[in-house]
């Protein structure tokens, strides 16, 4: 249970999130990828807060809490937009939403 353990887990989560974002064929899956990314960040903050700052300093944890809140807000807006897209395009496959290009 060293810091590096957490960091590795976080890095893997981050990478998987990126992978999902790049390859999933559903907007909601992309949102899940984003959540993975944000989770990895929060995990980082929490881990650093535990290991890199004095024990009484819990600012890292608080940042992580804010991170969760922001993720929630983002998810809400994201889903709203996905609904709008679904309404306009009849699909939420990201690559089908490509009228704007060039």
């Amino acid at each position, binding site marked *: *249970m*060293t*810091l*590096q353990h*957490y*960091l*590795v*887990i976080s*890095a*893997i*989560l*981050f*990478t*998987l*999130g*990126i*992978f999902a974002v*790049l*390859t999933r*064929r*559903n907007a*909601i*899956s992309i*949102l*899940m*990828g984003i*959540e*993975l990314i944000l*989770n990895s960040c*929060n*995990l980082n903050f*929490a*881990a650093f*807060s*535990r290991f*890199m700052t004095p*024990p009484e300093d*819990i*600012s890292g*944890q*608080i940042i*992580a*809490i804010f991170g*969760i*809140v*922001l*993720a*929630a*807000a983002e*998810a*809400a*807006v994201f*889903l*709203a937009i996905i*609904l*709008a897209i*679904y*309404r306009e395009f009849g699909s*939420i*496959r990201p690559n089908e939403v490509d009228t704007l290009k060039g």
Partner: protein
Amino acid sequence: MEFTLKTFIFYGFALMTVASALIVVTVRNIVHAAFSLMVTLFGVAGLYVFLQADFLAATQVIVYVGGILVLILFGVMMTSERFDMPIQVKGHIERGQLLLGGVIALALLMLLLTVIANTPAWKNLTDDGTELPPTTERIGELILNGPFLLPFEVVSVLLLVALIGAALISRKEVRD
């Protein structure tokens, strides 16, 4: 490092987190993916507990699992007639996308692992297992009467905006 129950559980959580995350990004069925994500989120919450971030762990479970994930499931249900959107779509473009995405994600991972492994400041910091006091009270103190007051207030505005915005965008066009 000695192998105790604690470490065993830790590894269990770690494995659970990573494995379920892997399922999230690979599984064809989006509902399955959502459930896997739940497992991941729980796993992360568990890791928070190991980091002695009790309030954070609680928030993770409540907000993420209880809020965001449900939201996501709603989204899935509202937008999908078919739940099993395959990843493996035929065609070289999709396969190329997978390949490229995999390569680039791997490269990123390698970079991150290199940094993690090679940063002296982060090496050999073992959790000595000392029990810290619960964080909830201090967090409340810091947020309401400390440096995090302003972020807290701003985030409240942000949430309001998100609320209004989500409502605005997702509502059906009345006038048309």
